[in-house]
């Protein structure tokens, strides 16, 4: 789709979409949203890019190798955060008392929730993108 208008608008829009996605992820523990919704929004921005330019460009932007690493490591982060609590002598995924949670009213009051939603968001975004590029580009799995 070689449409100059679309491409330009996409270029302008993408950062905004991505910032919104990150906002939703990071604010997951305070306001509606969270890793899943935010991740999808993040992924959607790349899909938009792929649609207006071409799939190859999106693949260059977000290569498969990176996707594999990101998807694996995000799950690992989740599990390791959980195991960290065990290491500190509490139950799996214990938050209170193990992770620092600053005073109420600031952004990062969730303890480990923020890193976890970040991991989820990245994982979801990556999955959405690879799903799309694999389906659209018909690459070998």
């Amino acid at each position, binding site marked *: 789709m070689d449409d100059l208008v679309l491409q330009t608008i996409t270029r302008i829009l993408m950062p905004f979409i991505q910032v919104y996605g990150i906002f*939703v992820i990071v604010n997951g523990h305070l306001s*509606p*949203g*969270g890793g*899943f*919704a935010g991740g*999808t*929004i993040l*992924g*959607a921005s790349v*899909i938009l890019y792929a*649609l207006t330019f071409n799939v190859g460009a999106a693949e260059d932007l977000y290569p498969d190798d990176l996707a594999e690493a990101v998807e694996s490591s995000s799950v690992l982060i989740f599990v390791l955060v959980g195991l960290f609590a065990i290491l500190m002598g509490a139950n799996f995924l214990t938050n209170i008392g193990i992770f620092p949670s600053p005073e109420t009213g600031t952004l990062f009051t969730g303890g480990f929730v923020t890193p976890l939603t970040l991991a989820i968001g990245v994982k979801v975004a990556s999955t*959405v993108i690879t*799903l*799309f590029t694999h*389906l*659209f580009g*018909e690459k070998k799995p």
Partner: protein
Amino acid sequence: MTEIFHVMVLTFLIICAIAVAYIRDLLSAVILFAAYSLMMAVIWQQLDAPDIAMAEAAIGAGVTTLLFVVTISKTRRQE
């Protein structure tokens, strides 16, 4: 007022759902499905579940529709 709104949205939701099942043109079905998802998102929001609404809007109306469209473009448009 909200009552009427709820009834309207739900009616539209049901119409969409039935239409998706009946329509022969797959692309139209997908678009109707997206409309269905949007309605659903509105309903979630009305049920005080804004985060579900958000996810439904992003995934149901956005990504899923796209994936369906891609699939149709790879295969046939008619059932």
